[in-house]
Structures are given as C-alpha cells and as structure tokens.
C-alpha cells in the first residue's frame, strides 16, 4: 500500500490563518472536507501548544509527534512561525526528515515564486509535483 499522507502547513497561531495547503496522497487517508481541514489544523495547533504548557520539564517545544493506533502524525514548527504536519501509516519512520524536505520545497517553489502572495492558498503545480514525488519515496 502506498504511504498514506495528508499534509497541511498553517501559519502561526497569532494570525490564525486557514491552511495554505492540505492534500491527501492516498485513498486510505481520512476524508475531510475543507471546513474540517481548517478546524483540524487549528485544533492541532492549539493542542500542540497546550502540550508544551503541560510539560513537567523546562524548554519544551510544541508537539512534534502523535502516535495513534491507525496513524502517526509528525509536525514541524519553523523559526518563522510556519507549521507543517503530515499524517502517515503507523510505524512510518523518518517523518521529521520528510517534513524538513517539504519545508525546503516550500521555500524553493512557493516562497521564491514572485506570484505567490504570503498566507494565501498555494496553487503551484511544480510544488505539488515535487511534493508528490517526495512523499511517494517515503520509506515504509
């Protein structure tokens, strides 16, 4: 079965923007309508911060990973307040590397695109194509 991923980068909580991009890469992914995607992304953002507040030790960053019975979720918070997260089959390794690579793709194909407006939904074919290739190659 293909690696099942669903991905959505969102901006920092202070601005609370809807996801710039949310895509399903597998037929097994949970089917979420765009309104649900928005809600899930915001909820996840909030919960990631609450987990940081619940930390018994100092220096914690927001939630980086969530392991569930039928999926695993990994998140990346960038220094600029962007958030990437990916939902994959349980036991998938190396998702943090995948997220970093996705961030690089975002910088190259989206941010450097002169026609892209910050915080708007991403509609860049090349970004989608490269992202698709990156996720198809994730080791099981």
């Amino acid at each position, binding site marked *: 079965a293909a690696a099942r991923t669903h991905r959505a980068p969102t901006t920092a909580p202070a601005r609370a923007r809807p996801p710039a991009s949310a895509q399903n890469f597998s037929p097994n992914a949970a089917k979420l309508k765009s309104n649900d995607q928005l809600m899930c992304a915001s909820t996840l953002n909030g919960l990631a911060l609450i987990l940081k507040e619940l930390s018994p030790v100092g220096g914690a960053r927001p939630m980086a990973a969530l392991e*569930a019975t*039928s999926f695993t979720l990994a998140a990346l918070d960038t220094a600029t307040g962007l958030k990437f997260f990916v939902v994959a089959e349980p036991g998938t390794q190396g998702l943090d590397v995948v997220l970093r690579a996705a961030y690089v793709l975002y910088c190259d194909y989206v941010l450097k695109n002169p026609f892209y407006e910050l915080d708007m939904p991403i509609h860049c074919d090349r970004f989608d194509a490269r992202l698709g290739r990156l996720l198809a190659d994730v080791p099981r």
Partner: protein
Amino acid sequence: AAHGRGAGGGARARMIYNMYIFNRDGVCLFYREWHRSIRTAESNQEDQKLMFGFLFSLKHLVNKFTPESGAPGFHACHTNKFKLNYYETMSGLRFVINTDPRAADMRECLRHIYSNIFVEFCAKNPLYDRGKPLDNQLFEQSLETYLENHPAFRS
C-alpha cells in the same frame, strides 16, 4: 526514596516525570510526580483540568484523522523534552504517564498498572468510591514498587 534518584544531574535517560489517572467525568483520581522541574499552572488542580481538557480534545482530533477502516485511539504524543503516554480503558478511565522522550513504549506498562494494580487494589476494594480521588495505601505502594522496578526506569 524515589525523589532522590537521579539527583546527580547530567544524562537522565528513560525517566518518569509524573502520572495522572482520570475517570470518565474528568475527576483526577490520582496524581503523583517523581521529577517535575517546572509548573506552568497555578495549582495542581488547574494542571489536572488542563491535562484532562487536552486529552479530551486530542481524542476528538484523533477520531477526525483516523481513516474509516482504522481503529480509533492514540497511545502517545511527544515534544522534544517529554513524552506523554496514554491508556484509556473501556470504562473511560484514563492513565497518563509523562516520561523522558527516549523511553520505550509504555503501553504494556500502563495496561499492567490498570489490570494488575488499579483493578486489584482499587476496583475490587469494597470501600472504593468511584467519583472520588483515590486514597489507597496498597495501591500507591504497589504502583511505586512496580515503577521503581520497571526496567525502563531504573536510573
């Protein structure tokens, strides 16, 4: 005795920080800490309410992301500094243990705490009052003994 462990500082791998037990209504039945260096909430009660609220919302979020054919539920989430291990029983009891992020899978440990310690010393105790925090010496002693001897936590 448990509090003095690991006081040497430096690398403290596979350590347990604290533990919560909630019932299905959100009452915190049990809370114990072994190593806790910061406290963001004003009181233990606030902290427990925040934890329960967090678990409640996270459970709903996990349901949203679970594919149609998949089994519901989650067992862990982590940050760079700690890992939250979770076990929920069919009756709605929620067991949470916060550990070092490098700790091994705690599912079996939590299941053992429920089935062999909680059920034996609390549920089967005729004086057990369901809605109230636990006040049971035998339970606490068995729990301490079990955790101190657990291979993952001998520091």
